[in-house]
């Protein structure tokens, strides 16, 4: 769509048209006996002569720049490139580069999650015969991607570090809760504390009296709902009633603390799936052959910034020269 703006290039003829001197009256010779002739309209000749060549060039450049800015051209300037996801082991990456023969290729560091999408949308920047090597812990895309250039994807799954979640447990049955959180395995680990702190993400409230008004957390598990009036008419999903309050989101259930391992696992699983994003799955290493897919339309030209500056500079120059000419 953008490239249709190039059709506006004939507007460059306008300043050229304006800047030529059009009409020059034919010089009249004296003739003593002209009085015996009928009077005629003065004839005018069109003479192709330039006026203010510098100003004309400036105006033409200004127009061309504007059209180029609108057309948003993308110049294929990138050659062979190694895309390294941020946080990738440098030594492993170096080995892969050597092995794939990309020693002289340019390096490009991108966030792992957006690396493939970025390459796809900026593909017009690569020369037609360029090859790409993508290294790092690249998550697997939902659909098999297609590229216009040969792309080699080599992945190295990073050892997953389980995330820590601070949990505060208040009440007489704290031991049971602690045992349940101790059984939590997978990408999450719970750190159980006596009193809630700034990092606390879950407060388990297993006592009758209401908590102090200043105590806040994203999620509360309440064993006895009598202290929380918000839960009185709360909807129930899968045996858990939930409501939003000024302190944070409240969950409650009559069967808490869970009495059997299956109930405990279900509660923990529900909690994790609702509050924590799943960890990305590292894509397997593979090679994509170049396929003649159309270029992504929304690729943003790298020239746009430069063109904008050129436009501003040319505009300022044009104004100055016009002003100077009027003097």
């Amino acid at each position, binding site marked *: 769509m953008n490239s249709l703006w190039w059709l506006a290039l004939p507007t460059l003829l306008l300043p050229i048209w304006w800047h030529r001197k059009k009409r020059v009256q*034919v*010089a*009249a*010779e*004296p*003739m*003593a*006996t*002209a*009085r*015996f*002739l*009928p*009077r*005629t*309209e*003065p*004839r005018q000749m069109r003479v192709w002569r330039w006026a203010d060549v510098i100003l004309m060039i400036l105006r033409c450049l200004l127009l061309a720049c504007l059209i180029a800015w609108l057309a948003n051209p993308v110049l294929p300037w990138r050659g062979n490139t190694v895309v390294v996801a941020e946080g990738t082991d440098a030594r492993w990456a170096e080995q892969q580069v050597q092995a794939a023969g990309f020693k002289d290729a340019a390096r490009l560091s991108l966030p792992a999650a957006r690396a493939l999408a970025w390459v796809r949308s900026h593909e017009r920047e690569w020369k037609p015969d360029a090859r790409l090597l993508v290294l790092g812990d690249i998550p697997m895309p939902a659909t098999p991607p297609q590229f216009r250039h040969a792309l080699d994807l080599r992945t190295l799954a990073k050892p997953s570090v389980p995330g820590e979640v601070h949990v505060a447990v208040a009440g007489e049955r704290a031991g049971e809760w602690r045992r349940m959180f101790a059984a939590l395995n997978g990408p999450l680990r719970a750190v159980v504390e006596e009193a809630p702190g700034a990092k606390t993400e879950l407060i388990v409230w297993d006592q009758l009296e209401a908590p102090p008004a200043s105590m806040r957390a994203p999620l509360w598990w309440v064993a006895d709902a009598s202290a929380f009036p918000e839960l009185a008419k709360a909807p129930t999903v899968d045996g858990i009633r939930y409501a939003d309050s000024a302190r944070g989101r409240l969950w409650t259930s009559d069967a808490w603390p869970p009495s059997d391992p299956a109930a405990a696992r279900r509660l923990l699983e529900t909690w994790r799936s609702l509050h924590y994003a799943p960890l990305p799955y590292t894509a397997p290493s593979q090679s994509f052959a170049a396929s003649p897919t159309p270029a992504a339309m929304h690729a943003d030209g790298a020239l746009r910034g430069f063109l904008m500056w050129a436009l501003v500079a040319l505009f300022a120059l044009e104004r100055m020269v016009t002003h100077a000419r009027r003097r």
Partner: protein
Amino acid sequence: MASVSSALIAHTTNLDLVIRHVLAGLGQGIHAGRERGSGVEFSEYRAYAPGDEWRRVDWKLLARADRYYVREAERDSHVALWLVLDASASMMEPSRSIPGLDKLAYARTLLACVAAIAQRQGDAFGLVVLSGGRVQFTPAARGPRQLQRVLARLNAARAEGELPDAAALKSGLRFAGAPSLVFAASDFLDFPSPLSEALLRLRHMRHDVRLACIQTEAECTGGFDADPAYRDPEREGGVFRFGADLREGYLRNREAHFATVTAACRAADVPLVDARIEQAPGDVLRMWLRQAGRR
């Protein structure tokens, strides 16, 4: 007789030289002047005084009387000669066939020749130049100095502006009551005009008025280029075009105009010579003077 072509006028600004060439082919005594030159008509003898020319001493009387006597000639030139030059802008019109020649140069040459003839015959002559709405008047006198003065005035005349109006002409043409000859050279494109009326009035006052109508070959035959635009040098505004389609109308208008001129001159008994500047000036001059002599 080898007549001097008008190309000579285009080649030199030296009026003396042109006069000599033109008059060489013309011969002497063509002017039937009413006055005599010095020493023609005997009047009386008087005793010699130091400073008198030796050639005026009567040698026969010296032999008889053994005294020096000088022959006194009668010098009663009553006829003054007036040269009137129209130097309005229209006289700038160049010849379209001879480069460098224009109507003013041609008229100037004719008048200079008349002045030279007058000087040779001992007549007094004066000059009136009409240019830029003003009248430049040189009083009549005799002698070679006057000739040089008149030639310088003629040389200095530039074709510009329009003819002077009637009031300026009336104060400018202050001719004596004595009969005089008036040689006027103009293109008579403005007719009737204050100038033509003044000349005809002079004729009515029994002066001998002779007109030369100066024109170019292209003006007479309509031989202008069709390419350029033209303007009238004496009238503001307006551009004119010339072409084969307009030629007939041009010639008709021009003929009608000069028919009035000729008719007016004939009615006032004023001889009018049509002079084309491409013609040899000697021929034109002979015609101008002969016409005068016939009367």
